[in-house]
């Protein structure tokens, strides 16, 4: 089943609906063997009856067998709201293999939506942005919401530059209710600026999770000679020597990732680095654990 979570395999599936179903079903099937998580009202524990407890919760079958009065407790079931903020800037177009960062982000978002709406009965919404808010699907659990979200994902084509400061001013206006906010981006910004832009959502009671999407080549670039590199967002060109890419660049990227991780966690947010050749279950697992923590 793991192979259905492999982004290389998923890239061959054209329909986001089918893709999300494949991912989530495969992921859930794997979870059934795990004792840690549950998705509906389920038994939690027995507790001895004390006067004043609601008699409706007494387990009478147990009382009939043991003549002792115990309360049967269930884990409560609540609905949450998932909002995905998807970066659709030009830098997300980059790929060194079969999967672009944008496609990988789409797969994650589609899988999250499917998981949230079909399995968790949560409301889910989408904000697509680059240097402006390009598309917005209000979080809802209504019939056809999943189709609307997938359609919005299909429409989200990268263009323009990333400027997270500008659209985030509007995010507060769009997020009316507390819930889970997942920001999917490659975060080619100063980590301080990124945290400063996203932090207000946390202050409003949202659980914020940053999915940092990067290609393997962006972390460990391999140049076989001095090369001319073009910035996908600015079209700027520079000549780079392999020695630099091998040493200084790697150190800078590692420092950037580490800084982003530490700043977001210091601000009470979660951070997850996702490399485009990794399976998708990491992102789903992160979402579920965050959802559980939110309750």
């Amino acid at each position, binding site marked *: 089943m793991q192979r259905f979570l492999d982004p290389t395999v998923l890239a061959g599936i054209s329909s986001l609906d089918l893709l999300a179903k494949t991912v989530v079903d495969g992921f859930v099937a794997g979870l059934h063997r795990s004792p840690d998580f549950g998705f509906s009202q389920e038994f939690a524990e027995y507790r001895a009856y004390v006067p004043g407890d609601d008699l409706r919760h007494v387990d009478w079958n147990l009382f009939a067998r043991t003549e002792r009065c115990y309360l049967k407790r269930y884990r409560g079931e609540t609905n949450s709201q998932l909002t995905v903020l998807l970066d659709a800037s030009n*830098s*997300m177009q*980059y790929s060194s293999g079969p999967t672009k*960062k944008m496609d990988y982000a789409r797969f994650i978002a589609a899988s999250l939506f499917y998981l949230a709406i079909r399995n968790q009965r949560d409301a889910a919404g989408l904000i697509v942005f680059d240097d402006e808010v390009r598309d917005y699907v209000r979080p809802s659990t209504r019939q056809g919401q999943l189709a609307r979200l997938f359609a919005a994902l299909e429409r989200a084509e990268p263009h323009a530059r990333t400027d997270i400061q500008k659209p985030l001013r509007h995010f507060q206006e769009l997020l009316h209710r507390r819930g889970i906010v997942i920001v999917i981006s*490659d975060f*080619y910004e100063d980590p301080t600026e990124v945290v400063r832009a996203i932090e207000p959502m946390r202050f409003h009671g949202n659980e914020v999770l940053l999915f940092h999407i990067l*290609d393997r080549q*962006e972390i460990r*670039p*391999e*140049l*076989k*000679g*001095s*090369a*001319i*590199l*073009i*910035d*996908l*967002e*600015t079209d*700027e*060109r*520079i*000549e*780079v*020597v*392999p*020695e*630099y*890419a*091998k040493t*200084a*660049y790697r150190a*800078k*990227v590692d420092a*950037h990732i580490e800084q982003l991780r530490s700043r977001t966690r210091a601000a009470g947010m979660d951070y997850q680095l996702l490399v485009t050749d990794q399976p998708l279950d990491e992102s789903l697992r992160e979402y579920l654990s965050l959802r559980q923590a939110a309750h």
Partner: protein
Amino acid sequence: MGFLAPWFLGGLAVLGVPVFVHLLRRHVTTPQPVSSLMFFERGTQSSMRHRRLKYLLLFALRFAFVLMIVLAFANPFVRRAAADANGRLLLIVLDHSFSMRAGTRFTDAKEQALALLSAKPHTQKAQIMALGGQLEVLTQPIAEEAQLRSALESIEAGDEHGNFGDLGRGIQPLGNTIRGPIDLHLFSDMQRTAMPANFADMVLPANVTLVLHPVAKGAAPPNWTVESVDAPSELSDPKDPRRSRVKAVVAGFGTPAAVKTVSLVVNGKSIATHKVNVPANGRATVEFAPLDVGYGFNRCEVRIGNGSGGGDDFPADDTSVFAVRRSDPERVLFVHGANDLRSAAYFGAALNAVARASFVLQSVNAEETTDIDPSKYAFVVLSDAVILPAIFEHTLQFYVAKGGSVLIALGTSAGHGARITLWGGNVQDVHDYARIGSPATIGQVDFSHPVLEQAQPVRDNGGWEEIKIFYAAVVDAGQARVAAKLSDGTPLLLDKPLGEGHLLLFTSGFDNLTNDLPLHPVFVAFVDRTARYLSGSERLSGSRLVDSFVQLHATGQAEGTSANVEVIDPDGHRPLSLSEARTAETIRLQRAGFYQVRFANGRDAVIGVNPDRRESDLQPVTEDVQQLWSESSAGGAAAQTADAKQVVLKYQSISLWWYVMLLALALVIAESALASGYMGTRREEI
């Protein structure tokens, strides 16, 4: 410059490969898109420049390497103008052999050579050589005229016998060393007797042009000379009519019949004069007897004329010198075994027959030698004396080490395994040929050995073939020289140097029981030569020819143990340095006159040295032969016609193939070193 195989230049098309790889393909670089240049920095400019320079250098090396390989196949050459004087080596060879003393030959030759040297361009290189008994190189090829002139003027007329074969052999390596053309100018009297036996020895290398300058024009002048002198080198009794006489041969070359006065001069004083009729172009013998000389060394000479020469243009050859040493008869110690009584009689009789009054044989039984001092004897003979008193044996060893000589005859007492006194070995076996009924004969005789020396041995092996050997011991020859062998290969006579002396081992005996040698006439001659060889009198006086050698030290002597020798040449100079006096084994007698030698064993010698009498025949080589010699070299052939000379000598093609290949090799090594460093960086990136 040209190419010997220009069609290989088509290979220059291969030069397109490095051009494509380095210059054309290099510009096709596809820019790579990246998400952001946020973390990238522009490459350091100096590093890139260095890399580019390295890259271009690698391209240049590869390009040059391919170019060199193509050029090597095309075989380039350069044409160097060779006809100009500066490109030709002027080689002046001046003959200073003895015959050049005749008339004004040597003076004329030297003047002509100096005139040629003066006429040469200042920048032209020249080299001076002198041809005498051997070819002497006096200068290197240089252009300094003063140095060349000085070398030429330093050549003096010599006493040696010249040979054009030495010239040919000496010039061969020079012709191979110097690639350019050489003009060899030979100033000589072109004497016929200087021609080698084989004409091929005279042929010069192809790049040598021989120009002959014969200083003897026309027919050879008449010349009388003392061709040979037969005189005793040792004399003990001046009244001995058989030995006390001097026999000289006066020869005329190209001379009419004449009456010549021949004098015998002893120590500068003419003691006898004879008139002799010398036939036209013939020889006459004159005899002086008795030879009355005083004790010690006497410097004698036979001279034509009464101090005024022989009446020809070549007075230097009118005299023949020799030394006669008068002394009391020397004693010879003959030690024999107890049973060996005949050997002393035979040996003594033979010795008395040839050298009467020169040697006196003293026969002693081996057991009675304890108190005998061998140093008082000319030499010692051990005949069938296997066992000697230890004291005498030790004294004998010391005697030989100091220059004494011993003749050992093994006889019949030397049985199987017996130790050979002084020799340093044992008898390995004995052959009793008499017992098997077929006596052995002497199969091989070394006539070059002084004891067996014969100028022209006749067909019966010089008289040795008839001798029958009945008994002989078998001895391991080791380092010894085998002078005679039996027909079955058993060594009969062995010679071994020991210290300054000699050991002569005769593996049979001197009686008529072990062989019949004492009964044959050859035994007398054998004893005579043996006595002279072992006593050393052969080399103490008498006469020799110029260019002959005198042995100063024994060859078998250990280094550092030899004593100094002293040699004084006819001019009163010491030709040997101190180190040479200690180490030189021989000395070459280069001058005519009397040499005084003191050998390492303390014995003095006076040796008369005469020029080779072939030099007295002044007949020159015919013009046909001279022309043939000149034309035998390519340069000489080219000199036949002026036009041909210009064509042949104007240009000389010098192939550059070897240099191009060397350059290509250097390039490929540099390319490998540079490319490995370049590729090494790339491997690190991966």
